[in-house]
């Protein structure tokens, strides 16, 4: 039943410099970071993806560009999910914020900024949400030490 919408999305939305495929029954579109905002605009307006589920990132230390920023959307009209990936380099880990389209993106972008250091251009409030003020680095990046701690209270000796 959901096959037509899946095919229509892949036909209409995959840009020339992007990549579209079906992974585990879910369409997955990879785009350059610059094309993200325009694509999500079309996704929301034309294909009724009205629910922003999550944003996170994947760190590929050996790859250039190093990060995938991964978005999940849901359409309550089509009862259908979609995954979107934007590739960003470590030198300039910037993507456009989706707060103007989905209000709920604000907190999730803050979390992603905490954990991976992705900068969401247009999100006015990127303060730490799960980490604390003064935390140096981004703990879910692969180059952050597995046992590296930053205690707020000096340990008893």
């Amino acid at each position: 039943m959901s096959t037509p919408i899946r095919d229509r999305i892949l036909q209409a939305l995959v840009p020339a410099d992007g990549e579209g495929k079906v992974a585990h029954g879910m369409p997955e579109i990879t785009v350059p970071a610059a094309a993200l905002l325009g694509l999500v605009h079309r996704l929301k307006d034309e294909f009724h993806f009205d629910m922003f589920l999550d944003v996170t990132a994947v760190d590929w230390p050996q790859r250039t560009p190093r990060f995938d920023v991964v978005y999940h959307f849901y359409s309550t009209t089509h009862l259908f999910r979609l995954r979107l990936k934007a590739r960003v380099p470590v030198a300039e880990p910037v993507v456009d914020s989706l707060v103007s389209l989905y209000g709920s993106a604000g907190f999730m972008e803050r979390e992603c900024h905490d954990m991976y250091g992705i900068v969401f251009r247009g999100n006015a409030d990127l303060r730490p949400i799960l980490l604390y003020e003064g935390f140096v680095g981004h703990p879910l990046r692969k180059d952050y030490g597995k046992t590296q701690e930053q205690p707020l209270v000096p340990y008893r000796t």
Partner: protein
Amino acid sequence: MARDVIPIHRAAASSNAFEYFSTKKDEFVGWARKFSLFPYPFVTACCAMEFMAVSSTPYDTDRFGAALPRFSPRQSDLLMVVGTLTHKQAPILLKVYEQMCEPKWVMAFGACATSGGFYQNYAAVAGIDKIIPVDIYVPGCPPRPETVIDAIMKLQDRIAGDRHPILTDRF
């Protein structure tokens, strides 16, 4: 952060008669204190479920005089740290501990509070004893209610056998 904790010193005995009376006084005060443990549950994680089980009817910590939780650290004697402590929460735990009046005891409830449990990462403190002194550790993930009751009884034994000076050199 400065840590201004009033230590309980052993009363210096001067004579046998003084020692006799002070020991009797310690026994009496210890007996009173061991049956009036007012716990402050500093509950941070899933061990809370086991804490509820141990305080409810089938296991009933009220039998040990340790059932009535005080939700203000100023009114409590036993700080029960139930669950994982994160670095973000460590200053809060330290503040709660410092707000408690002497005499006070601390129980590390469960594997995470004892040693960090299976967490070894940027977020978790590997045991609350890195932040505050701990009197008794309860193993288990989560601990069985019997383990908690055993810990309370062991703590009571310790309190009963302890010195309880009324005056310390600080006041």
